[in-house]
């Protein structure tokens, strides 16, 4: 027995409070966010102005809602690439139903949510029944939604964008919830930022403090083991897909009521942005590890960089280059973390 305990003591030197903090998945992202914040704050004047702050916070919030929900799905070991197109699809559903057919705005919003939930359930069902990776299944869903967004919108309205939302009855009540602006100490805070924070808090609580959260880590970290200990693995993943689609719906509503219009191309080219946010925030691409707060910080990095580059008057193509480098660094850091944690699989 003595030899065993000696081995253990060697190992425990690193497990102080400091080491425990360093082991948290979101630490790397927090450091990066601080550096980016400091850089743009000191090199541009607009970045720290009240208008500037509310701009990059708004931008971050839209990525953030998707990134946080997507992070949970990734921790559960799956992907959803269709969620970007889902923001467009749900916005268009509400836009077309209200402006073209005069259907009640709240009914339209609920129907758009049901649509999102059923697509999420379909993605889950197909990938789990057939064993086809969700990456492929949701890639297909992405194309289907993108194509349908454009084709159906053109077919029904003759244009590629929805006009006349503010004239719809009940518009104000929906705008109050999804598109209003709060004044907070002289700074305009879009309500989507509140949603972003709320989603992050709830997701983080579920992940770390509930049984469901434990199961999400289990399902993503070791699927067979999770099933052996009696976790309803199919239900867990089904729930995650549906929650991610619902987040797509929420962002769709936030965009629609934030700017009062929606383009049929909404979400185009955004397939990977939330995945990037989640990975930069410490999620492993292979599942089983990550954090909701990290994903929110990842979205903050995305938003700050997106707007900071505009404020600094750089060519905005630098954004992609920067994100690519950041993603690569994040993946390498995550890999290192995983090795340290002794995952030999």
């Amino acid at each position: 027995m003595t030899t065993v305990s000696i081995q253990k003591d060697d190992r425990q030197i690193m497990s102080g409070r400091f080491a425990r903090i360093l082991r948290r998945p979101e630490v790397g992202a927090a450091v990066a966010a601080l550096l980016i914040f400091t850089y743009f704050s000191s090199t541009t004047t607009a970045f720290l102005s009240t208008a500037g702050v509310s701009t990059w916070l708004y931008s971050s919030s839209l990525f953030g809602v998707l990134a946080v929900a997507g992070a949970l799905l990734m921790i559960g070991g799956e992907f959803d690439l269709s969620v970007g197109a889902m923001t467009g699809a749900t916005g268009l559903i509400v836009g077309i139903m209200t402006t073209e057919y005069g259907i009640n705005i709240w009914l339209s919003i609920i129907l758009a949510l049901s649509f999102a939930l059923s697509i999420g359930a379909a993605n889950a069902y197909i990938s789990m029944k057939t064993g086809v990776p969700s990456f492929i299944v949701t890639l297909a869903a992405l194309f289907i939604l993108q194509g349908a967004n454009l084709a159906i919108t053109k077919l029904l309205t003759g244009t590629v964008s929805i006009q006349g939302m503010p004239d719809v009855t009940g518009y104000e009540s929906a705008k109050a919830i999804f598109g209003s602006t709060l004044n907070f100490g002289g700074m305009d805070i879009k309500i989507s930022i509140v949603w972003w924070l709320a989603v992050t808090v709830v997701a983080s609580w579920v992940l770390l403090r509930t049984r469901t959260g434990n199961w999400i880590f289990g399902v993503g970290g070791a699927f067979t083991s999770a099933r052996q200990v009696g976790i309803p693995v199919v239900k867990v993943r089904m729930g995650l897909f549906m929650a991610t689609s619902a987040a797509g719906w929420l962002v769709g509503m936030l965009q629609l009521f934030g700017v009062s219009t929606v383009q049929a191309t909404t979400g185009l080219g955004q397939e990977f942005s939330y995945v990037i946010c989640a990975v930069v925030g410490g999620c492993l691409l292979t599942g089983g590890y990550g954090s909701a707060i990290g994903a929110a910080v990842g979205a903050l990095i995305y938003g700050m960089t997106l707007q900071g580059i505009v404020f600094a008057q750089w060519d905005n193509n630098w954004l992609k280059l920067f994100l690519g480098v950041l993603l690569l660094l994040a993946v390498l850091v995550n890999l290192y973390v995983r090795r340290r944690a002794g995952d030999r699989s």
Partner: protein
Amino acid sequence: MTEILSVVNVGKSYGTVLAIRGISAEVVAGEVLCILGDNGAGKSTLIKILSGVHVPSEGTVKVNGVTTILSSPRDALDAGIATVYQDLAVVPLMPVWRNFFLGSELRKGFGIFKRLDAASMRSIAKQQLGDMGISLRDVEQPIGTLSGGERQAVAIARAVYFGAKAIILDEPTSALGVKQASVVLKYIAKARDSGLGVVFITHNPNHAYPVGDKFLLLKLGASIGYFDKSELTIEKMTKLMAGADEMSTLANELERKPGTRPSRKS
């Protein structure tokens, strides 16, 4: 002597293939039953019957002396029979305490505020592991950072805590080095001393003999002997397992013919 689990003349066929036949053995509280056999001897099939994965095609399974049909792993668990599989059913990146309670989490609070009782789970996990002789200062560390033997012990401690009367260990030492394997054998002895019935599956007589009380030797799906420790020596067991004839044939084959040793050229 309380018999927890026993099989009487069980057999299992998959379609036309007879995997095992006519096997009887019993698991007694505070004893270790070792099941030995080469690959393909039918060990896995027998485990699957004991752990409720398969229902035997013939013969009976008895729990506490009563004939019972274990039709699912859940049934077996409810009857107090826990199986620790080779992959241990742990999630490497999750902290030790979360792994310990995975699938059977303790919760507190009501309605939507129902949440994990993390503090209790941490202290219970720590204490249960302490009882097994593993003292971790930090149950927050990912279970993947523990050694193979320690992980095995966590899986055993987990089974014991969740009410197992009998635990089935599927080749717990096969993937381990000499030192780690001896650590696991100590944990098996510890579990036995605490009054559990242990089924220890292995193909290594050197691991089985020191810790076992009864030995069931399997070969090609049939029992080639069911012994009490007093009736058996390790040499006899090794011989039976390898098949004495086969072993001597092998020794002949491997022996160098005189003059075949390559001569060294300078």
